[in-house]
C-alpha cells in the first residue's frame, strides 16, 4: 500500500516540494485530484451505459419515488465527501494563515515593482527603517525609499535574491510599490498577492537547500513574464556566513 500511495503521488507533475507545510498540502491536493478523476470516470461511465443499454420500459415510473434514489442519496454522499475535503483543507489553511508567524521567525520584507522583486533584511537591530515614497529613487541607490532620518533603516540591506536558512520559519511582509503583483514560489507551495497600500504577512519554513523560482503571478504589465527572482535556501551555517557578510558590508 505505501508503494501504491507513492505511485499515486509521483504521477502528478508537481515540482519538487521543499517546504515544511508542503507534504500535507500535496497529499490533500492529490486526494482531491484522484477523487475528481474518479468522479469524472464514474459520471462518464454512467453516461455511456445510459446511452448504450437498450430501453426496457421506463426505469422510473414516478419521479417522486425515485428522487431519493437518483438525486438525494448521491447528493448526500457528495455533500459528505465535500464536507470532509473542506474540513481537511480548512485545517491546513488555518495552520498557514489564521495565525501569524512565530515571533522568533526571520523577518524579511518583500517589495514587488514593475518588473523586479526586492528583499529587505532588517539588519542587526532587527527593525525595518521607515519608508517614504517620495524618496524612492533607484538611480540614487534607494529603490525602496528608505528614510535616512530613521536610524532603524541605517543597517537595513536590500537584495535581489531571497536567501533563507533551511529549517527556520520566515515571516514575509509583502507589499507593492506600483501595481498589484503576485508573489509565488511553486516549490514552496506559496502564493500571495502584493498589493500597493497594504502589507500582507505570510510565513513558511523552507526545508530543502537549493535554488527555487520566485514568479510574478498577477498580471502587472509588459514585463510580467520576466518578473522573477531566485530563492536560495542555504544550510543554517552557510546562511549565518551570508548574513554576517551582508551585515558587515552594510555597517
Amino acid at each position, binding site marked *: 500500500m505505501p508503494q501504491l500511495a507513492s505511485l499515486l503521488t509521483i504521477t502528478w507533475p508537481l515540482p519538487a516540494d521543499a517546504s515544511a507545510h508542503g507534504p500535507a498540502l500535496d497529499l490533500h491536493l492529490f486526494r482531491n485530484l484522484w477523487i475528481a478523476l474518479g468522479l469524472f470516470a464514474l*459520471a462518464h461511465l454512467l453516461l455511456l451505459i445510459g446511452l448504450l443499454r437498450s430501453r426496457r420500459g421506463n426505469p422510473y415510473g414516478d419521479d417522486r419515488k425515485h428522487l431519493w434514489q437518483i438525486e438525494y442519496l448521491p447528493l448526500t454522499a457528495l455533500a459528505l465527501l465535500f464536507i470532509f475535503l473542506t474540513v481537511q483543507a480548512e485545517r491546513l489553511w488555518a495552520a*498557514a494563515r489564521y495565525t501569524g508567524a512565530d515571533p522568533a521567525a526571520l523577518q524579511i520584507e518583500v517589495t514587488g515593482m514593475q518588473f523586479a522583486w526586492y528583499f529587505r533584511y532588517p539588519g542587526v537591530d532587527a527593525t525595518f527603517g521607515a519608508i517614504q*515614497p517620495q524618496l524612492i529613487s533607484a538611480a540614487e541607490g534607494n529603490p525602496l525609499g528608505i528614510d535616512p532620518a530613521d536610524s532603524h533603516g541605517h543597517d537595513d540591506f536590500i537584495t535581489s535574491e531571497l536567501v533563507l536558512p533551511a529549517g527556520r520559519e520566515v515571516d514575509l511582509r509583502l507589499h507593492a510599490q506600483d501595481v*498589484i503583483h503576485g508573489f509565488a514560489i511553486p516549490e514552496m507551495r506559496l502564493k500571495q498577492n502584493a498589493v500597493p497600500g497594504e502589507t500582507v504577512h505570510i510565513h513558511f519554513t523552507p526545508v530543502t537547500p537549493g535554488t527555487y523560482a520566485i514568479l510574478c503571478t498577477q498580471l502587472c504589465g509588459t514585463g510580467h513574464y520576466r518578473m522573477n527572482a531566485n530563492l536560495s535556501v542555504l544550510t543554517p551555517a552557510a546562511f549565518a556566513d551570508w548574513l554576517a557578510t551582508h551585515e558587515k558590508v552594510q555597517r
Partner: protein
Amino acid sequence: MNTITARKPFLRRYIFSTDHHVIGLQYLILALVAVAIGTTMSLLMRIHLVWPDLILPGHGPILPEDYLALVTLHGTMMLFFVLTTAPQSGFGNLILPAQIGSRTMAFPRLNATSFWLTAIALLTLLSSTLVQGGAAISGWTAYPPLSAVASAGPGQALGMDLWLASIVLFAVASTAASINTLVTIIKLRCDGMTWDRLPLTVWGWFTAALLSILAFSVLLAALVMLFADRHAGTSFFLPAGDLVSGTLHTGGNGSPLLWLQLFWFFGHPEVYIAILPGMGLTSMLLANFSRRRVFAYRTMILTTLLIGFLGILVWGHHMFVAGLNPFAGTAFSISTIAIALPAAAKVLSWLATIWRSRPQLTTPMLFALGFVSLFLTGGLTGPILAQPILDQYLHNTFFVVAHFHLIMAMAGVFGLFAGAYYWFPLLSASSKNPAGRIMSESLGRWHFWGSFLGAYATFLPMHITGLAGEPRHYAQLTGIPGSAAAHLLATGSIPLQKHITYGAIFLASAQMLFLWNLIRSTRRGEYAPENPWQATTLEWHPDLAPFAPPSASNETIAVHHAPCTYGDTSFLTQWSPGDKPE
C-alpha cells in the same frame, strides 16, 4: 403584423427593426463576428507561445504588449460579446417570446436600443486596437492601479479609456435587455403557461436576467469609479504613496482591493449568466431526444434559482490570495463548495433523463451530451479551486485556465451550437418558407466530433502545465531570465505547449465545418418539416414561427400541459388540448 412589416423599407425592416426576431438574428450575427475575431486572437497567442520568433505578416513580431492586448481583447470579446450576448440576447430574443406564447418582447424599442448599444460597444472595443499605445493590456479583469494610471504601461491611456467606454455601453445595454426579458417572462406568458410549465430554458433566461441586473449595475458603478480615478482626481482604487513609472500618487488613500470586490461581485455571476441558458437548453434537448420528461422537473427549477442565488455569494473565491482576510476566505470557500451541490443535482437529473432511453443522436442532441460532458469535467475542478489552501498553489496557473475554459467557454459554446442546430429551422424561416430549413446532419456530426475531441485535446493538458507551475499571462515561456524560473518552465510546461497549440488549431479548424454548414444550409439546406424534432414547446407552434404569414384562424394561444410530455412512441405538444399523448 407581418403584412405591415413587409411594406416597410429595407432599413426599417432589416437594420433598425423593432421585431425581436430580427434583433435576435442581429445579436447572433454580432456574436459570430466576435467569436471569429476572439478565436483568431487565441490562436495567435497559442502560436506565439510555441513559435515565439514568428513574424506576423503586416505586423512584425508579437511583442509582450501585443500578447497582453490579445489576452485582454480575447477575454473581453468572448465573455461579453459571445457568451453573454448569444445565449441571452440572441436566442433569448429569437426563441424566448415564442416559448412563453408571446408574439413580442415587452419593450420592442428598448430592445432595438439595447442591440445598437451593444454593437457600438463592440466597435468601441475594436477601435482601441487602432489608437496610440494600442489596446488595454490589463486583462479582462482590469485590476488597478495598472488600469488606473495612464503611464502604467502600453495601452493604459486611450486604449484603457476605450475599454472602459465599451464595457459601460455593454453594461447599460445588458441591463436594459435583462429588464426586457424579465418583464416579458412575467407579463406576456400566454393562458395556461404557469410558472411550473415554463420550459427550463426560460428558467435559465429568467435567472440569468435577474443576475444581469444585479451584477451589471455594480460593474457600472465600479467602471465609473475607475474612470473618475483616471480623469477626475479621485482615489477609490489608488493608495496614497503609490508610485507608478515615476508618477507619485499624492491624492487620497484608496485600495485596489475595492475594485476586486466590486469587479468579482459582477464577475462571478457573469459566468452563470453565460452558462444558465445553456443548462436550461441542455435539459430540454436531452428530454426531447430521449422522448422522456425531464427527470425531477421542479427540482431542476429550484436548482436553477439556487445556482443563481449562490452565484452572487461566491465572488470572494477569486480573492483567496489577493489580500483578503483569511477568515473571509473560509466563508467564500464554503459558499463556493455549496454551489457544487445544485450543479451536481443537475448532472444527476441529466443522467437520469437519458438513462437507458436509446435517444436519437441527432446533432443538437450530440452537442447537448457534449455540454454535459464538458460541464462535468470543468466543474469537477471547481471544488478543488474552492479550497483556499489548494488555490494558494493553483491560483493564476493554467489549471484555472483549463477549469474555466472547459466549464464556461467550451460548455457555453456547446450550448450555443446545440441551440443553433436545434433552432436553425426557426432561424432560417421566412414568409415564403415558414418552416425553414434544416442544417446538414452529416456535417453537423463531423463538426461535433471535431469540436468535442478538440476541446479535450486543448484544455485537458492545461491542467498538467498548471500543476507543473505555469502561470497565466506569460507572454513568453522561453528565453526568460532567472535560472530557476527558466528551469521550472522548461521541465514542467514547455514540453506540452506544442500539443496544446496543435489541439487549439484542430479545434478552431473544426469550426470551419460549422461555418460551411451554416452558409450551405441557409442557401440550399433541406426544407424542414413542421416541428422537425417533434418538440413539445411553444416555439414550434405554427402560428408563432418567426416571419410566418399571419395565421388565418388567428386563434389565441394557450397551453394545456407541462413541456416534455412523451409516450413511448408519441409526443404531446404544450399547445395541444388532448389530455393524453397522441
